[in-house]
């Protein structure tokens, strides 16, 4: 087996299971997913996207973010009203309140951590095709039309395409 074959058969980066659980809980609390939206393999797809992104980060940055997520989950006791429950075990309204406390915390590190985590979650969640369909965003048809149009323009410079087509 060559070095390359050994490497390709090797493991890709995977989010630790306990962190995955926190990310999923956070995605529910941050997004307010409507009941009518049925996302195929919602959590698996969401985590796959988070995985893909985290795999690209510099190792130290990734480690810091994971640490921040764990810290966020465990430190509910720092704020009044959440007892000693972990974030993942709070009710959805309490989870939202807890996130809000972090967002508006006077400690800038807390704000930085939650903004970073929110960025990861929003990017991963809103990249799902089912979410795009729910938002009626379908760029593919438009792009196919434009690719074909450009092809026609390049092929027949002598018969220009009308402005209406564009």
């Amino acid at each position, binding site marked *: 087996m060559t070095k*390359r074959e050994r490497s390709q058969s090797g493991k890709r980066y995977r989010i630790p299971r306990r962190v995955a659980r926190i990310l999923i809980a956070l995605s529910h609390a941050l997004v307010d997913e409507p009941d009518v939206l049925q996302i195929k393999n919602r959590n698996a797809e969401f985590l796959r996207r988070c995985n893909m992104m985290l795999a690209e980060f510099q*190792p130290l940055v990734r480690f810091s973010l994971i640490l921040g997520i764990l810290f966020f989950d465990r430190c509910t006791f720092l704020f009044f009203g959440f007892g000693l429950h972990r974030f993942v075990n709070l009710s959805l309204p309490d989870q939202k309140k807890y996130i809000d406390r972090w967002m508006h915390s006077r400690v800038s590190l807390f704000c930085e951590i939650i903004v970073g985590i929110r960025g990861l979650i929003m990017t991963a969640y809103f990249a799902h095709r089912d979410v795009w369909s729910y938002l009626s965003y379908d760029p593919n048809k438009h792009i196919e039309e434009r690719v074909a149009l450009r092809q026609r323009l390049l092929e027949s410079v002598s018969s220009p395409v009308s402005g209406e087509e564009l």
Partner: protein
Amino acid sequence: MIHQYQDIQKSVSISADVCVVGSGAGGATVAKELREAGYQVVLIEEGGYFDTKDYRTDDTIWSTTHLYRDAGATAIVGKPSIMYAEGRCLGGSTTVNGGMCWRTPEKIMKRWQWEKRMTDFSPQKMDRYFSRAEGIINASPIIPEAINRDSQLLKLGAEKAGYEVRANLRSAKTCVGANMCVMGCPTGAKQSTLQSYIPLYLNNGGEVYTNCRVQRVVTKRGRAIGVDGYFVDPITKKRMHKFKVRSKVVVVSCGAVQTPALLMKSGIKSESKLLGKNLITHPNAKVLAVFDEPVYAWKGVNQGFQITEFFEEGILMAVNFAPPSIAALALPHELPNPMQILKDEFHHMVMGAALIEDTSRGQVRVGPMGTVLPFYNLNSWDFERAVRAVSLLTEVFFKAGARKCYLPFTGMPEIQSIDEIPKIFEKNLKPKDIELMTVHIMGTAQMGGDPKRSVINTHGEFHGVKGLFVADASVFPTSIGVNPQLTIMALATRTAEYIANQFRQYL
């Protein structure tokens, strides 16, 4: 020939005249020009090779993870922390930029001449370099019919407010407005270096190695003699076969964050101690305007116009389309239920950006485990202009008929009418309250005639290290206030000409 990761079965050791690290606006330009001049050139790229047919416009995560460094989510640490994105693929950031083409403004060139002893940087003397680059990337006006509604609304609002607007020049051939520039142009119209300089370089027999990370620039007795690195498995990110180039000249073109980091990791020091300092971000603040009419911002050419009325103040305004994953990120985090907002308003949204020609300065440091960390704090002068720029942009959108605007300020997420604009100034906002992002990082290996006040000389060569050149936005001594692609290409063309003419001294 392009050597991709899968072609490499063992360690690679090469001798060449010139080794170019990075294939973006600077690197590809130098490589093509020197190859054309008859030199043996090796072009190295850390990212992978993806062409028009490979781009997945329906999968933003694929695009960000394959075409961008750190999945497009790198942060500059400071007050406020700023998100920045840069390309990491063959073609570098030109593969994922909007393709804007503006020459360095005269006021900037004058500053460089006076303050940095860059006496040759007059518009007249630089004209032939700009013209050459413009010809190769086809810098041209946009087909008017392909301009989308969001750009038209920006123009309409600016005209109603009495502000000067200019149509953008872009590096494109028959662009019909797929508006996926930032995900890799799916029509092949955008003339990134992957579509322009690199094919010309390859046609002349140039060699490209992708998925190859350079670890260090090798120097010996004050001379650059090559680079050492390794191939990276694009899936597992594991370090694979070694890579070694020995050359007479090394050109580093990795962008304004990675270039100083690579040089610092290589143990190269600047006499001025300015290597990695002078980080300029040219930050932009986003305003999301919501209109009653459907806008469908993804249908049409990216950034049709720019508002230049406040250019002398260092403010430039434009619109840009963002897919849902980026739009969700741009929504103020204080607003509840982003899903419902996007459901109701996504097709009615125009994303505006106000760019600030910043005077704040940060620095790039190399942390533990080789982590590259940029730091930058926005000073109060730049912050005041950012707030002013946001207010001007909201004014433009309200003049064009917007019914509300989402603002990039913590504690002030939206305003409903033009009459509420003064509230922005009453709010007592601080730099940490603004959300900024950037794609135009510059300045960390600044050019200049005085070795005590600059990192590289006016030809692009490192002060004190013979044969080591820098050709990217890190050479800019100050912010240029406009999109940097064309300036990088013009300066790189000039550097390549110098290397070709003076090559004998490097033998």
